[in-house]
């Protein structure tokens, strides 16, 4: 089962394996930027599935979707991946494995706070023996985000040893980021960001740029095109 699941991985996250861990690493923060409708949620769910397929535990925190909806996102994407590999007969077993390692937690619009998230993580650990390796936060409004919130989130990630992924919406009329900086409101906390991607429409595909890598703000076109529906790579990685 483990090999089969590993073989299904198609997320751009697999490109980050060079340092010996599958993502940006514990306590690190990764951001995904993109305009409305470009597929940020699909991308970030793809990150979650990738972590699950490599045997990690994932906490998906959603501020604007219901548990059912997030679950459906995962189910649809995973099923699509299995369909492509013609391995649909393993669906039930993989889905069960995924559900055991994933927890979806949603907040009604005004209920989210750093304290509540901290309490929830405590509860998941004590009541369910669940400590995530990857936390996905989809999504906070970047306009209202204080650098202090990002700092607190990053601290929580450090305490539990999880990597944190967040998606941010950019706007068509946002000024083009100045060289060496992250776009829009994210500039205010870019020091705390370890890794940043942007998703840009390119014909009928989506082009993936790395805009920050560890300490360096770069704008590296990886020359990677993603499927616009699934935001996945065309082929998988070898173990």
């Amino acid at each position, binding site marked *: 089962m483990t090999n089969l699941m590993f073989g299904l991985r198609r997320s751009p996250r697999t490109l980050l394996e060079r340092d010996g861990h599958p993502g940006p690493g514990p306590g690190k923060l990764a951001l995904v930027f993109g305009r409305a409708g470009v597929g940020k949620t699909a991308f970030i769910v793809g990150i979650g599935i990738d972590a699950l397929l490599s045997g990690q535990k994932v906490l998906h925190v959603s501020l604007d979707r219901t548990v059912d909806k997030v679950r459906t996102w995962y189910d649809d994407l995973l099923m699509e991946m299995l369909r492509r590999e013609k391995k649909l007969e393993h669906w039930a077993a993989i889905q069960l494995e995924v*559900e055991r390692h994933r*927890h979806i937690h*949603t907040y*009604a619009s005004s209920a989210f706070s750093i304290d509540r998230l901290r309490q929830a993580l405590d509860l998941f650990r004590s*009541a369910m023996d669940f400590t995530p390796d990857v936390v996905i936060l989809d999504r906070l409004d970047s306009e209202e985000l204080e650098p202090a919130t990002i700092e607190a989130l990053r601290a929580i990630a450090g305490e539990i040893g999880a990597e944190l992924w967040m998606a941010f919406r950019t706007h068509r009329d946002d000024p083009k980021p100045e060289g060496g900086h992250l776009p829009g409101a994210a500039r205010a906390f870019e020091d705390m960001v370890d890794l940043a991607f942007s998703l840009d429409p390119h014909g009928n595909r989506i082009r993936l740029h790395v805009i920050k890598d560890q300490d360096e703000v770069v704008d590296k076109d990886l020359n990677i095109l993603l499927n616009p529906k699934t935001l996945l790579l065309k082929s998988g990685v070898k173990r």
Partner: protein
Amino acid sequence: MTIDIQRVRNIGISAHIDSGKTTLTERILFYTQKIHTIHDVRGKDGVGATMDHMELERERGITITSASTYVEWNGHHVNIIDTPGHVDFTIEVERALRVLDGAILVLCAVAGVQSQSITVDRQMKRYKVPRIAFVNKCDRSGADPKRVSAALRDKLGLNSVLMQLPIGLEEKFEGVIDLVEMKAIYFHGDNGEELEVTEIPAEMLAEAEDARAELIDAASMFSDDLMEAALEDQATPELINQAVRNGVLALELTPVLMGSAYKNKGVQPLMDAVIALLPCPSDIPIEAVDLDDDNAPVELVSDTTRQTVAYVFKLDEGRYGQLTFIRVYQGTLNKGDTVFQTRTGKKIKIGRLVRMHADKMEDIVTGEAGDIVGLFGIDCHTGDTFVGDGPRLAMTSMYVPEPVISLAVTPVDSKAQTNMGKALSRFTKEDPTFRVGLDQESGETIVSGMGELHLEVYIERMRREYNAEVETGAPQVAYREALSRRAEFDYIHKKQTGGSGQYAKVVGYLEPCEEGDYEFVNDVRGGRIPTEFIGACDKGFKSALPKGGLIGFPIVGVRAVLEDGNSHAVDSSDMAFQTASLAAFREAYKRAKPRILEPVMRVSVEGPAEFQGAIYRSLMQRRGVIAGSADDGGFTRVDGDVPLAEMFGYSTDLRSATQGNAEFTMEFSRYAPVPRDVSDELLKEYGSNKGQEDES
């Protein structure tokens, strides 16, 4: 009498138990002048509300059977299906949803979106039923319709928008502000039947204007005309209603109305909204399938001149015999007409045609496309389609879940035996999720259904309505067996010792199959098995399915592929090939690593946030896999999948773990393999049962 289809509404009223749905229905019937006094569900007058027509329902204060009733409102013709509130009866809800064009989702102004509302909403999504929300009980302490509207967004992901504002709340609740017309509405008279439509109180004007702007913002997404008019500050009530209606029909907008049915407030504007905002039958595309054309979809049109197509969604055995509730989708159904029952091909003559008002009825001569009517003296099942002359059409079959729990019932004496037979035959016709079978070994009658309460209610009804006293066994989970890998077979059945002999050889393999319970593939080339025996092989394999080799439960998800074989000119027969196939199946099955599957329920538990830990633990202790949790500040909801076998007694345990503050619902989710330790235990249990039987 020809009715204008634009003036027909077929609506359902769905809600969490205790949201006041039955009271609301009762008020609607009163205001439409069908009944002359108002009774409450738990009324002091001992009469009970009109829609709850079964004694048992009266006693428990819940609605179990959906009765259809017909009312008129402002020149419109409205059929109301009262739907049950308990999740164990979801087949009732789903059958009702199938024939509805729209629905009112009733919510309690205090409790808001409760677990049952979530299940009901999920079902409505499944059947794509456009809906409006009614926030009831605004007179109760703690009522907050705006919070409920926000919860519709947060918990159900609905795009809710307020159509009204409350004037006062709790015991000071006086009426509502209509944000479309920008008027205040008060309800006077003994039963709120006198409406006073007047100016909005000055102190609420600013709030009302803000809320109206929000409404127009949300609605203008669905109408360019409204958007343009709004830019020039020219939005008219007609434009707003039309835009909201577009949004409702597209299932992208949920207008929120409010009131207190019990205090007779807000019901008439709700009926106006039903007419203005919910679809008429021709607004909803309906498909049937043509059975003579490989189930090709056929779009039906609400046109009285076309071939008649009608669908049976409910049977009811009453004082006057079997009453069949049908919805006419196309053409007309007239008294004296002859139609065909698609399932059996039988001709049926339409005798008495009625419109139902709960326990009372009016005779009519015609039911037209879009209408819901009752028929008498027709022998049929729910889910049947009746058609006039023309292609053999069937309404696409409804999704009917397999029962997940069963119970042995033993009548106490011979009189009870006879009565039980009558009762069971009626229940199975009415409810496709309620099944009756016979245990071949013990000779006991086994009833199966969707949950403990589902079966309990039928047992209770047997006692009360049929005077059939029965003893029941312990509830039994409906396990399944399935193979987990491919296994070959090569089997010869041979008995050729004098007299007419038997000879058959079958070669092939079994493999797991995801789609459906059983599939037979004939891959035999060159007539190695003569064509006339292929059917016997299929039959032989099939006969192995009802009883698996592990613990004796049905085998599902298997494909039997026949590739080769042999026959004898004289000694081969249907019987020989059947026997060979059955034996080949049983032998290969053992090598196909069979495993036990169990029904897994999707469980939602809801309670105050301080009990979150207790809720998690209660599910984890029951082999639950927790899928997610939702935090809305004070309340928390936990969703998980839990094996049915672990759910017995859960309500008691949950109550004690949360001091009675949490509640839960569950519905069948899927079959999943049981873990090794459970499997070992089941094998042991089955083995020991077997041992006992062998001894006896």
